[in-house]
């Protein structure tokens, strides 16, 4: 997956997790929590969905990388580079 494709995938997961939120104006460099109503269970949902959808494993010590869209995509890029978007 390219960084752009990973971004789309994360947006799709966020849409599932937070169906009441408007994601159109999400700012990539601003923390998710400053823009969306997300709690720790929601972040675990991101981890879980990546595991289920792409078998990507994110260890607990790396959860901090999921703070914003930019940091998430940057963190996931090497882990998902060999995944072909279906």
């Amino acid at each position, binding site marked *: 997956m390219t960084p752009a494709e990973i971004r789309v995938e994360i947006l799709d997961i966020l849409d*599932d*997790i*937070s*169906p*009441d939120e408007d994601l159109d104006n999400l700012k990539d460099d601003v923390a998710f929590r400053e823009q969306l*109503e997300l709690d720790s*269970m929601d972040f*675990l*949902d991101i981890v*879980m969905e990546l*595991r*289920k959808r792409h078998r990507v494993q994110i260890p607990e010590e790396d959860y901090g990388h999921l703070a914003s869209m930019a940091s998430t995509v940057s963190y996931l890029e090497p882990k998902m580079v060999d995944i072909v978007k279906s």
Partner: protein
Amino acid sequence: MPDDQRIVITGIGLTAPNGNDWATYRESLLAKKSGVQPYEIRYFGKTLAGVCDFEATRYQKKKEIRRGTRAGSVGVYAANEAIKHSGIDWENTDRSRVGIYVGVTEHGNVETENEIFIIKGFDYDTSCWSHHHNPRTVANNPAGEIALNMGITGPHYTIGAACAAGNAGIIQGAQMLRLHECDLAIAGGTSESIHTFGIFASFNSQNALATHDDPTQASRPFDKERNGIVVAEGGCLYTLERLSDAKARSANIIGELVGYAMNTDATDFVLPNPERQAQCVNAALQRAGLNAEDIDIVSTHATGTSSGDTQECKALREVFGNCKTVRINNTKSYIGHAMGAAGALELAGNLSSFQDGVVHPTINVDDLDPDCDLPGLVLNEPQETKQVDYVLNNSFGMLGINSVVIIGRV
């Protein structure tokens, strides 16, 4: 009894397979409108069920619905509707003095089945088991979701009482009000049971799951051709207050809980014991200071199983066999068996009789089983009365749990 020990109903919120508010539900009962429809669930396949179509997003965000359970959604809807119906000044209510007491037949089967289904797709890799499973399946979940949604910080819990749970929730709420553990009780029962294939499969294995070519005729307590239970979802929660508090705010009082009783068969896992059921009914009458002749409507528990219906009829014949004016009906014939919500919903269907004086009938009785031929049965057509002063509501469950409540006109 002093007014601060007398407990009254001041609001009703409900969703039933044939109505999403008290008035519509009553209209459906008087119009003999069933809420049973064709239904399909994973593994079990095609069957019948009582399905609710309430608007969950009226009181919940989509995220709340996704994170929670169907029983929670049913409860949130019913609780908010009850508060609205009660006319309570909710914005200025001390939420730490509100208690939530929700009867459930079972909870957690739906969510556990869902997770097992999901991890099956991952070769049973338990790392794909949701972190939401525990908060969804803790036994207090439906009551806890109501508390979260409405900002209620008083005591909340569920009452696990099989299919006697709806009445048990009401009784628990009343007891907590009498103890002054809360000033307002939101009490009754909920059910999400149609979303677990296990309940259908288990009743089917017990030869106790109803089938019929016409879904609306499948639930037929007291009829010779009855062949089992129609599983239903639903919920009914009441606002209960002490009479003194209700009077102080000039509340519209729907009825008073004048008597109640719970007891246990201690004889069988599933087969009801009519002797114990009769004892439970008599205990409720005694607590109310009433005789059997004083009861105007008996709302039966009968589920449409061969033995269950006849057992309850034996109990009722013992207590009400010589009563000239009592009317006896059954609401499951319309909506199926709403499990933890059944007792509360069936009571609500009959409380309208205080206002309109009409007794809704048991429908689908084409050929009355002689073993169920009780005096006063209201069959297939509504009956008008001069006045209804007392409604007695039966609700019984597996492992021999029995509950009876008596509501009186105020």
